[in-house]
């Protein structure tokens, strides 16, 4: 894969320099480290929301730092967890007395580092930190049992967690309430992806896996984690049917339910194709009597230049609908109240 970069070593640093140069009014960095991105707007008494994760997924994660969404983000190298120190620096910067909520995806390195950061924030800085770990990829493990450990990966559905928790924090709700909202979204969101081509980590220089010219992999993760089925590329409607059925059965989403939908492009898949997918989603949900509250389509969580897409469904109630409607203004996601 050809890339417009200078050197793999400087890729993320230079990307971040570009981010700060492009959005000086919206974001800045904390602790003298470009990897610790925080919003320029700090609201006294508001719960701070931090996320973090590896690079290569723009607009995830840092792109959602802004009004009505997140307050800070620690940024790792490509597909690599940032360090505990970086997450701690973000935490210190965004805390304004009401505590900080960490929202991030269910990945080993992230959990290890962010738990460490939370511990240090609590002990050394006296900042109350709570964590919500999103894991909603139905292709990556058995359905979550109450009380048991969630083994599922966090993918594009985390956008909904950011959106609702961000709105709750913007409404000046206290930490335990913001956390409750985030957990509620996690419980009600499910995602499934499909990959058509791999992507290349710049430093590695070759694709992380291979898919034949007529193949796809249903359920593949955003770092190329194995999915649930590799097979011949199928027509769009058949792909959607397979993904959507797995999602619908999982929660399950039922006749009369209302949902928000996120159709997410992984990088190289054109918007046109995402709309072809949405057409079918709309048909299937109509048939099943599942009502669509609102639809988001575009690139929300990518894998650099991977071709493919994911579908996320969030079951909404009046509370979540109100929070989804809340406006947001970040470098990558802007929404007027609707």
């Amino acid at each position: 894969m050809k890339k417009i970069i200078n050197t793999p070593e400087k890729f993320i640093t230079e990307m971040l320099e570009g981010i700060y140069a492009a959005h000086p009014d919206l974001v800045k960095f904390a602790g003298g480290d470009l990897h610790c991105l925080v919003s320029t707007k700090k609201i006294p008494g508001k719960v701070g929301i931090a996320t973090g994760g590896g690079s290569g997924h723009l607009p995830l994660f840092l792109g959602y730092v802004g009004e009505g969404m997140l307050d800070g983000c620690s940024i790792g190298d490509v597909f690599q967890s940032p360090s505990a120190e970086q997450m701690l620096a973000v935490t210190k910067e965004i805390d304004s007395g009401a505590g900080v909520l960490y929202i991030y995806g269910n990945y080993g390195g992230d959990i290890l580092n962010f738990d460490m950061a939370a511990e240090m924030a609590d002990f050394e800085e006296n900042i109350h930190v709570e964590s919500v770990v999103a894991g909603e990829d139905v292709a990556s493990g058995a359905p979550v049992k109450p009380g048991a450990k969630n083994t599922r990966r966090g993918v594009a559905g985390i956008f909904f967690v950011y959106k609702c928790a961000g709105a709750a924090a913007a409404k000046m709700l206290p930490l335990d309430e913001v956390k409750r909202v985030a957990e509620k979204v996690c419980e009600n969101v499910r995602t499934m992806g499909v990959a058509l081509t791999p992507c290349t980590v710049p430093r590695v220089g070759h694709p992380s896996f291979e898919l034949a010219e007529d193949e796809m992999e249903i359920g593949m993760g955003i770092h190329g984690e194995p999915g649930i089925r590799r097979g011949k590329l199928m027509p769009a409607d058949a792909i959607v049917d397979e993904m959507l059925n797995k999602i619908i059965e999982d929660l399950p989403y039922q006749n009369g339910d209302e949902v928000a939908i996120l159709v997410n492009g992984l990088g190289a898949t054109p918007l046109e194709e995402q709309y072809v997918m949405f057409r079918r989603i709309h048909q299937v949900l109509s048939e099943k009597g599942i009502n669509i509250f609102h639809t988001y389509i575009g690139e929300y969580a990518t894998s650099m230049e991977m071709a493919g897409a994911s579908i996320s469904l969030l079951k909404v109630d009046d509370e979540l609908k109100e929070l989804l409607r809340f406006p947001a203004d970040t470098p990558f996601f802007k929404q007027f109240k609707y």
Partner: protein
Amino acid sequence: METLSVNKLKEMILYVADQIIESKPLLTELDSAIGDGDHGIGMEKGFLKVKEKISAMNPSENVYDVFTATGRALLMSMGGASGVMFGHFFAAGAKNAEPKTFLNPEDFIALMQKSLNTIKETGKANIGDKTMVDALEPAVQAMKMQGGTSFIDLFRSAESAAKEGAEKTKAYQAKYGRAIFLMERAIGHQDPGATSVWIIFRSLREFVEKFTEGKQAG
């Protein structure tokens, strides 16, 4: 029986740091084959931080402070799963340990056993999963077999067990970290994290050998 003072320990850690930093090309090569190519960079970053922190460390009467500072420097600066794992390598065994002004070989064995436990608990990896555990667990076993007679014997046995363990990872498929996605294609390649463990024990052995020679000469 030998002991290591706080200052000698600092020197030893600085020596290990230099050796790891020197091994960056090898670690990069290994991680590029089955991972994302950053293990060498991560370890270099971490051990540069270790050098900075250890050099600037407040005077201490407790050898465990040196381990804690080392582990913490790695953990705070490296990122990734390996940052936490190599952090634990040094710091976990030192946690809540009774302060001592001199470290003896028995202390070191106990420390490493505790660290290994924490690493396995946190990372969930076992022997055969193609991780640093494949080098560390046999090294700890070997040290326990060897017993706490002298650091030089201790580190020699640890080094050779770690080396063998790291080499064995070539035969394994990965169950943790990035190499998972490669499935059976990871076979034939040596795990970078396990290789780092070997380099650490090799460096410990080298340092003590030089130190002992130095003593004999001086």
